[in-house]
């Protein structure tokens, strides 16, 4: 945790969890998709569902999906901007169960022939925690530049990707590998201390066993 997590974010009001945090979840979902979505369905759970209007949660998530920062003065007008850019957005109230944090969002996106879903919570003061990507359990805070890879579960995938990162001089802060079943699809989440260059994503993408690679830029200050 940084002093700027507590003395910050610098943001458009009115709520760090319901506005800035919601925006950051939108930004991460956008990054997983790989760009601005054509269609988005945003499910709001708990306190988010009860108070989203007063907190501008709807506008904040959409601002994130459009790639705006938490202090972007266009946030209050984001729904309008999305409509103008042809982004279709629907909101719904969802019950993600008693175990879900009271400020949880489920974001489903489609665009450029791809679709993705993300579940994440805004845990206070603008901090977020992504708990699910495409139905897989993950643990991601957006505090680090992150490489997200979906790959076939074959031997050596992790070693190969960490070798590439070492070549680029990128230090790994946290590494999480999980898979559905043996030989199925594996998820690699690499949180790093350094920015991840675009070329690295392209190099990772070239392995025939990689289905999908994305760079998620850190969303905290």
């Amino acid at each position: 945790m940084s002093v700027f997590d507590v003395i910050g974010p610098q943001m458009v009001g009115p709520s760090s969890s319901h506005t800035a945090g919601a925006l950051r979840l939108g930004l991460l979902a956008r990054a997983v998709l790989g760009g601005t979505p054509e269609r988005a369905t945003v499910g709001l759970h708990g306190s988010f569902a009860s108070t989203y209007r007063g907190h501008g949660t709807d506008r904040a998530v959409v601002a994130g999906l459009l790639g705006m920062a938490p202090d972007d003065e266009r946030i209050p007008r984001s729904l309008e901007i999305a409509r103008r850019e042809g982004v279709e957005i629907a909101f719904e109230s969802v019950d993600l169960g008693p175990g879900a944090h009271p400020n949880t969002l489920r974001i489903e996106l489609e665009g450029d022939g791809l679709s993705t879903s993300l579940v994440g919570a805004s845990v206070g003061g603008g901090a977020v925690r992504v708990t699910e990507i495409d139905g897989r359990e993950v643990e991601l805070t957006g505090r680090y530049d992150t490489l997200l890879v979906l790959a076939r579960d074959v031997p050596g995938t992790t070693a190969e990707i960490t070798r590439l990162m070492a070549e680029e001089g990128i230090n790994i802060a946290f590494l999480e590998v999980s898979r559905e079943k043996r030989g199925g699809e594996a998820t690699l989440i690499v949180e790093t201390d350094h920015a991840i260059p675009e070329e690295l994503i392209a190099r990772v993408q070239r392995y025939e066993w990689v289905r999908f690679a994305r760079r998620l830029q850190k969303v905290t200050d």
Partner: protein
Amino acid sequence: MFESVADLVARAESEGSPLWRVVLAEEVEESGRGEEEVVERLHQRLETMRQAVDRGLGSDAPSVSGLLGGGARRFEAWRREGESVMGPFLGKVVARAQATMEVNARMGTIVATPTAGSSGILPAVLFAAGEELELDDEALVRGLLVAAGVGQVIVARASVSGAAGGCQAETGSAAAMAAAALAELRGGTPEQASHAIAFTLQGMLGLICDPVGGLVEVPCLTRNVSGAIQAVAATELALAGLKFPIPADEVIDVMGQIGAELDEKYRETARGGLAATPTGRELAAKVRWEGPEFENTNVARAEDLTREEPPGEGA
């Protein structure tokens, strides 16, 4: 990162350095940023905080809902006419706490310290201290560092989220941060700062989060006023040499426990407390946005949720 106030105080005492220096050293080590860069960024944050206060004091623009607006300016004018008996320091604190919260409520730019819903408290205390004690921005940035150290401890041990822990987690945490910062700015010892934190937070335990209409307006704005005053009074107790018998870390822990036990209706759902009073409900009904409420499975489209006029800053 610091896990306890005791740890922060012990490090300051053993190194013979002020709290702000301990927090700065830790930040430099953790973030990999240089000392100058950290300090420079804090100056930028301070400037944004100052602009929010100035905008709030200088404008009558209404909040998103129209429930608030112009209160800070009106109070400041009344105070300047000599009507207040609080003295200039507290009077300024009360006006400035309102100012930031009004800007926040109209979707203006603020710095969340630690949250947007509690963003009035720390700048109110810092800028009043800056003006009344003739402190420069370098001193105020040292105050920010101390406040940040305390906030980190609270995040680690409890919560700063109203939805998770009620208003005590937001305004209580902000007030505790402001108290420690003020103790530092007034030359208090690290131990006195820890008592300032304990004195502050003990008085805010159990405070529920019950925003009318789910807006960060009523009672959030005036709870920021209460928190800021609490921080100043508690710091004076500590500086006078009084000691709160329960250590700051235990007060923080119990705040977290109380928060976890609070009924959901008191955790930022707008279903309890002042939000659920007859008048609270009436006000909420008045500020309701255009378009359908979604209940469970109803899906409201974005255009239905867009109001005719974006709220904007208006300042």
